[in-house]
């Protein structure tokens, strides 16, 4: 019976990431490599920050619940900061790698533009973050039971999946915006991305008041989507071009 919940949640959480992967990443091996490396960078950041949290919890009284909750919040904030640090580190790595790749490539010029790398790196972060958020919950949705015996909301699974979806897309957009900001030396972008990430995290603390947490997160996601679209070279003019189906005039 709850195979339906399992598949539903899996599709919600990973559907867009999966389709992005299929259509934009899978064909180009270089993009796949950058995706995986991005996922790995996110994983390392999570490992380091969870180490800090783990040490903090083991060193303190496990029975004191408010202290543990506060430690969790502190650990998560530290994790957010560390994730952005690692995103920056990945940016530097990719810039260096890009020069090397340009040297050995057959085309003249780098095989991947920074924008493409930004998008792929962001998606890598997003996929890994989504996996870590959701796999645990998905595996529990397979059994015959569901959440609610102790008063939790029945919508636990579907809201977890929606949150994961939002977070995946947000990471992608943050990647685009972040790398663009670093390219143009606009350092305030980094600060804004960090603040938005922290804001999303604090909204998630409002669960299980799902109306108060999910709707604002999706609003932020839409705003970030618009920002990412514009910073990656899109414009309203291009959208109107799309609708009027004007053909491109190639330079002769």
């Amino acid at each position, binding site marked *: 019976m709850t195979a339906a919940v399992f598949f539903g949640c899996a599709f919600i959480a990973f559907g867009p990431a999966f*389709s992005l992967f299929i259509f934009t990443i899978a064909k180009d091996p270089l993009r796949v490599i950058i995706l995986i490396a991005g996922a790995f960078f996110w994983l390392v950041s999570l490992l380091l920050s969870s180490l800090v949290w783990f040490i903090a919890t083991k060193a303190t009284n496990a029975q004191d619940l408010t202290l543990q909750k506060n430690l969790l919040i502190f650990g998560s904030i530290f994790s957010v900061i560390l994730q952005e640090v690692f995103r920056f580190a990945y940016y530097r790595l990719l810039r260096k790698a890009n020069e090397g790749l340009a040297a050995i490539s057959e085309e003249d010029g780098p095989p991947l533009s920074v924008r493409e790398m930004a998008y792929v790196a962001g998606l890598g972060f997003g996929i890994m973050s989504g996996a870590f958020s959701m796999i645990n919950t998905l595996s529990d949705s397979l059994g015959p*039971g569901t959440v609610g015996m102790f008063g939790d909301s029945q919508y636990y699974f*579907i809201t977890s999946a929606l949150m994961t979806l939002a977070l995946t897309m947000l990471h992608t957009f943050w990647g685009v915006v972040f790398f663009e900001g670093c390219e143009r030396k606009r350092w305030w972008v980094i600060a804004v991305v960090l603040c938005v990430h922290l804001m999303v995290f604090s909204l998630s603390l409002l669960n299980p008041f799902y109306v108060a947490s999910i709707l604002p997160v999706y609003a932020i996601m839409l705003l970030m989507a618009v920002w990412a679209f514009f910073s990656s070279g899109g414009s309203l003019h291009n959208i109107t071009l*799309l609708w009027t189906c004007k053909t491109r005039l190639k330079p002769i």
Partner: protein
Amino acid sequence: MGLESSKWAIIFLVCWLYKNVSCNSVEQKIYVELNNTVPCVRLLNATHQIGCQSSISGDTGVIHVLESEADLEWPLSKGPNPPYMVLLESSLFTRSIMMKMKNESNRVAGVAVVVPNTSPPEFSPHTTCPNENTGVYSDNYGPNLAHCNTTVWNPRGNGLSYEEFDFPVFSLKEDNETEFIKQCYLDHNRAVNGSAPQYPLCAMQLFSHMHAVTNTPTCMRRNDINFSINPEMVCDPLGDYNVWGSIRPYNDTVFGHKENESVVIAAARLDSRAFFWEVSTGAEGSVSGFVTLLAAAQALREVTHAAPPTRNILFAFFQGETFDYIGSSRMVYDMENGKFVIDLDNIHSVLEIGQVAVHSGTNLFLHSDPVSRRNNTVNDENLVNNLQSSTAGLGFLLVEPNVSQPLPPSSLQRFLRAQPIPGIVLADHESAFNNRYYESFYDNAANLNLTYPSDLSPEEQLEFVTDTAKSLTDVATVVARALYKQAGGDESLVNTIKADPKIVTQMLYGFLVSSNNSWFQAVMAPELKNILKPSPPEYYVGVAMSSTPTRLVQYLLANLTGAATNLTQSQCQKPDELPNESRQVGVPLDLSVCRWIDVQRITMLTLGVGVAVLFTSLLVTYFISTKADVLFSSTREPASAAY
């Protein structure tokens, strides 16, 4: 709730890896694990299977707490959310309710029985005529006595232990977890005014999958199929060791008939069973008998050293008697085939101690086999006289039943199957058992009225001589005197034989209250001390090669009868290839309570949203990726530049 698809298995494997890394709090929101549970397992014999079985991934059902027998209508026909998991109080755990559920087993996912701390007035899941097909009485031997035609030994028996159930049956203790289940039922599952309860509902999942099926020959044949490097055994034979010892030692390498050797066998049984796996305490059913015999053996120690009797006395404790006489039939088989230190012709007579602790009056009874007594050589009045005269000065009498009735279920019947031998079974019941809880989990210390004053520490309780111990001591004294006389000992020394009440009470404490006491620890071998626990040992014969009671009796027999007896370590018997042997399978057990939700609502919503999100994202991504040049034009030269 199938996990059949291999795709799920792969995903689940991945999830399993993640799940096992950390303490899983989502699981704690969904499931509550129940800990103090005991399943009913499947047993096989040559022709049938009995017991309970769940499906391989467990059985799940909506919890229903049964209020009365009429309330069975709800899970069996009226309830709208089958299958149901029925929770029974012990007063409702009756044959009629269980058989009704067995007949509608497609609506019943399983049964959980709450076992209370105080026993009901009577309860016996065994059959009314125990071991009726494997005793001595048959159509050829005393046909009017066979199949309990004259005396029904266990009239309270409801035969539930010998029924086959297709759903799992578990027992729960009366504790917080059970209260939680009942509260969950009252909060969510109760039908208000006859209307159906709304989802989500409280449910329970029981795992007790048994690999053994059909009957013993089939199962043993399946055991022999070895496909892989680690062959999986689907069932194990029930078995253990018998314990025996004699006054004069025998050389354990010399088997077969011994010339001019005449032996009096004193026998008792060691094992017992219950409906649920292993929770058998067998206080009246077996402990009373073998404790009395051990005390008699100890009482005989000095006098047999000082003035050895003419005949040897062999003390035999048989395991597995509940399941068609596994132990005694093995000893008879070995005697017939010259694999034991004596053979059937060496046996002078047999005295067996049956159930002797629950008196219904002051007298005890001497049961014998009327068919073999028609033969004058077997009708040995001496044995009866020796027994009856041994009660002098002890305050009770030994009486023969005044109707001609068969032997009660006893190991002596297996000896008689092979050869007519004079024998007596000593019991506290004249006809039907006095034991109201024969072969059930209520046959415990309370059944023997074994009570200790409340202010004693465990060590003080060990030493305290209870009334039960005093009465069993008297029985042991009688048995010891009778055995000495029967073995041709010196008549003048008979009255010096007295059993020690202190030893009897220590044994009763160790076997019925706590086996981890200072006396048992002193008697047991150091490497075996870890089998001693603060609870009484389980008397189920089991599939391990030697269970706790066997070991304890072995070491106690050696300790109480001194160096003059043969120690039993390497010679003990293994019931291996025997007809009518029962089989049993080791059991994985797991039980959890969970809750689920209506398929129509949130589940379908989730699935629908998921599929919609997936397809939408596929379409949108495809669209954007094909129009990427147009949308993200700054990556290339402006498209509309015309040269």
